[in-house]
């Protein structure tokens, strides 16, 4: 995390090295100051630079990842032996609910947005994300929602109805008390944060690309982020509707899900999975972008089939909305209707296989630089592939009758989510760490980290396929010894401990390398996209002069003319807005400066959200501080307006 004193010092000490072409040292210093975060404790809370916020966001999501991992370890210890006594049934219900909710809502979806808010502006040649204050607000809201959930958990009022919170179990009759309310309200938080980040990222990508970066030249990673965040816009409202109806059922006595009063228990499942299945792809698609970035760099050539890759990602996003019912095959929905969803679920394998074939072709025809990021990415071809194939099994209605809600599904979903998202994410972290920090992660520790993770993962999760087929259902807190499930469960627990060890190595690697790692050059991997053209870590304004883009791999291809945009102000946060498709220069825009009010608005919103768990009236009185904070957030400043008008008159 950047404290602003640090930034200023860094700017003073090293600015000549990273002044970049085309800007006098004095101007570079001014620019650095303009985009820096204010000093001091208050300044820390007022920071809105996208890299500062993104780094905090990444660290926060990683902490939630570790917490979720510790919960998983508790689950594995409980199940290691039959009739386990590590956790009681009540604690177990809370622990597995918290594990699922943490990993899905507090880690997997937001970490992708966090990485994106760091990288996207650098990759598209922008000085910032759009709406930087909203970006900061989204981060704070997310963090406070996560903290609220964990405070509840440590007070023994953690949610216990599963991360999917099926009604009527999660309804007022069968889950009295406040546990499920905290879960539902956590959804509201992450929902709000994810939607705002989606608006920030979509706007950034469509309107703030450097001149010349047409959609056809946009890095594949940016494409995946664009597509993912459009999916967020459509998927998240479904879960918002579902969780709001749940909260009103619980708090004010509505009957959306109560069959006795005309409600329907399956309504929840439709709404939840209409969000929940696309959510898997919210988690899975950004890593496809990591894969494309890393494979191109480490096989020293552009990815094969750029148009096919882009179209595949878009096709995946569309199809992702048409297969939610495959989570509900065991319900009494009409059989013919289920077959439609089988077909859709099988069809989504086609775009994914196109991408896999393109990557293999890239590797095949490339020259390979075998480094840790590539190792993590290669794990995708084993783990995600296996998870995808077991997904085809689950897509079949008849097979799903046997496999559904058994440990087979636990194995499948971890193969998909870890193989498809977490391994590439770690690869991405090894890849971009030098850009984030200016230092390299250790290769040696990286390889240990990788192999322990890879082996531990397979030891932990492969046996679960067999356990599921042997009849072990999910979400059981224990099992009798005569079921014959004990050996494989013990093996799985040993695998889980191995994963924990690999995570420990990762943390050691990060903490050590951050201070003592090898100093990274601006482009340590010889990569081709714009973020590698600026120093590591990047200047506060990202680019001293905004580049003009002439190809898909600007650093690999010969520079065209003009090379740079001139005329953007250094004294205030001025950015260039370009057209949606062709990135033609459109106009200049002033972005707002740092403010504490984004943070304070998040605090006010938190008071409203947490209060409303205990009394509906909190929505009324809690709105007052939110309104005040939001008004002050947007309060115009005269001097800025005057300077702005002046700059318009005499550009």
């Amino acid at each position, binding site marked *: 995390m950047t404290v602003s004193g640090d930034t200023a010092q860094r700017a003073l000490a090293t600015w000549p090295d990273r002044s970049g072409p085309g800007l006098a040292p004095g101007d570079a210093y001014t620019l650095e100051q303009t985009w820096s975060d204010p000093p001091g404790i208050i300044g820390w809370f007022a920071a809105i630079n996208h890299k500062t916020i993104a780094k905090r966001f990444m660290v926060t999501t990683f902490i939630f990842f570790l917490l979720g991992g510790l919960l998983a370890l508790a689950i594995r210890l409980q199940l290691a032996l039959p009739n386990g006594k590590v956790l009681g049934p009540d604690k177990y219900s809370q622990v597995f609910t918290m594990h699922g909710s943490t990993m899905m809502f507090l880690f997997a979806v937001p970490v992708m947005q966090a990485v994106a808010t760091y990288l996207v502006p650098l990759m598209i040649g922008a000085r910032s994300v759009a709406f930087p204050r909203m970006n900061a607000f989204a981060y704070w809201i997310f963090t406070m929602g996560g903290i609220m959930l964990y405070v509840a958990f440590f007070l023994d009022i953690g949610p216990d109805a599963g991360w999917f919170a*099926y009604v009527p179990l999660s309804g007022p009759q069968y889950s009295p008390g406040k546990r499920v309310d905290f879960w539902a309200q956590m959804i509201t938080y992450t929902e709000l944060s994810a939607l705002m980040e989606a608006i920030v990222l979509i706007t950034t990508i469509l309107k703030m690309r450097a001149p010349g970066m047409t959609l056809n030249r946009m890095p594949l990673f940016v494409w995946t982020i664009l597509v993912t965040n459009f999916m967020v816009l459509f998927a998240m409202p479904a879960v918002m509707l579902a969780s709001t109806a749940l909260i009103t059922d619980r708090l004010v006595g509505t009957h959306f899900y109560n069959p006795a009063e005309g409600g329907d228990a399956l309504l929840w499942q439709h709404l939840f999975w209409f969000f929940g299945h696309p959510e898997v792809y919210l988690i899975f698609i950004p890593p496809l972008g990591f894969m494309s970035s890393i494979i191109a760099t480490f096989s020293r050539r552009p990815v094969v089939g750029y148009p096919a890759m882009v179209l595949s990602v878009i096709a995946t996003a569309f199809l992702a909305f048409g297969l939610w019912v495959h989570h509900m095959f065991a319900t009494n929905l009409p059989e013919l209707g289920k077959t439609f969803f089988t077909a859709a679920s099988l069809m989504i394998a086609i775009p994914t296989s196109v991408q896999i074939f393109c990557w293999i072709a890239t590797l095949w025809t490339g020259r390979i630089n075998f480094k840790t990021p590539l190792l993590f990415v290669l794990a995708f071809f084993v783990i995600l592939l296996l998870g995808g194939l077991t997904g085809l099994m689950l897509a079949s*209605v008849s097979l799903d009758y046997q496999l559904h809600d058994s440990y087979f599904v636990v194995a499948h979903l971890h193969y998909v989510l870890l193989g498809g998202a977490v391994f590439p994410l770690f690869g991405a972290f090894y890849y971009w760490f030098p850009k984030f920090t200016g230092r390299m992660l250790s290769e040696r520790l990286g390889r240990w980290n990788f192999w322990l993770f890879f082996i531990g993962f397979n030891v932990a999760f492969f046996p679960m396929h067999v356990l599921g087929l042997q009849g072990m259902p999910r979400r059981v807190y224990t099992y009798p010894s005569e079921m014959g499930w004990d050996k494989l469960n013990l093996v799985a627990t040993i695998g889980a401990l191995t994963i924990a060890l690999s995570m420990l190595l990762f943390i050691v690697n990060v903490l050590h390398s951050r201070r003592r790692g090898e100093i990274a050059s601006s482009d340590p991997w010889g990569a081709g996209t714009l973020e590698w053209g600026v120093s590591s870590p990047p200047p506060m304004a990202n680019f001293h002069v905004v580049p003009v883009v002439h190809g898909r791999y600007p650093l690999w291809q010969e520079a065209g003319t003009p090379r740079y945009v001139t005329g953007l102000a250094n004294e205030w946060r001025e950015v260039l807005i370009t057209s949606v498709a062709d990135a033609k220069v459109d106009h200049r825009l002033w972005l707002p400066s740092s403010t504490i009010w984004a943070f304070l608005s998040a605090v006010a919103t938190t008071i409203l959200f947490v209060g409303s768990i205990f009394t509906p009236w909190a929505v009324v009185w809690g709105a007052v501080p939110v309104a005040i904070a939001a008004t002050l957030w947007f309060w115009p400043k005269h001097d800025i307006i005057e300077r702005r008008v002046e700059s318009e008159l005499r550009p």
Partner: protein
Amino acid sequence: MNIGMTSLARPLQDALRPAGIQAEHIGGLWNLTLGLCALVFLLIVAACVAALWIAPRADAGTAPNLDSLARPERRIWRVIGWSTGLATVGLLVLLAADVFTSRALARMPLQDAVNIELVGHMWWWEARYRDADPSREFTTANELHIPAGRPVVVTLRSNDVIHSLWIPNLHGKKDLIPGRTATLRLRADRPGTYRGQCAEFCGIEHAMMALLVEAEPAAAYEAWAARQRRPAAEPADALARRGREVFLSRSCVMCHTVSGTSANAKLGPDLTHLASRRTIASGMFPNNRGHLVGWIADPQSLKPGVNMPPNALPPDDLQALLAYLETLK
């Protein structure tokens, strides 16, 4: 706390060992799908390994090869196109196999079926054996007996939250959803004891909601059903008669039914033929005196969260009650 969940002979609960026509259909589809998927897995991993093997090594300083930006790589595209086509064919095979399996599942003949209405409760199963003649209907809990070779239609309802019936050796799952009715049609073709379990998270004792399915020859089944239809027999000895008094005067009677007595509450399992069942607490503990004592005195220690309250009975009353319960054959 430490009365272990052991001593039942290991019951079958395994999707890979089908004992009925429905599970066999699914097992066939599983074998086909597993074979096809394993082949695809090996091919793609082999392609990946070959790619890494063939491609020369480089380092970060190696100049990138930008030929593909200058002219299209038609040969590679063709290979990718064919591979994708092949993958699509494989997917179509899976789709067709699934459709045919679904059809086979739906076409199981239903003549002369046994009709069972299974109601899910937190955390036990209530089974009503339906019959055209109402006097032949009866109710039991947590243990189904079915005639081997005869179709069984299980109508599924829930009394509270969503449960899911899963007897892997006989068929896949079907959810019990409050406000909705589902049916599961199955047939056990080999006699045996099959264990089933709730497969949808239904609260803290979801793990302890099992049931046994006893598939037996027709004659044995009919004999069992005839016994189940009879009301509880009049206890023969004084101790058991006193036990009945205990049962009827204590809180037992608030939740349980013993037909032929004034106990006819429906909140807990029907105990009319408790002693004929192999397990207590929904398939979790062997039905013997030791477990019954533990269960009556302190059910929370065996199944924490269960709705049955603890019963602090004087030792004499407890012994009498046990003697009575053991007469409920």
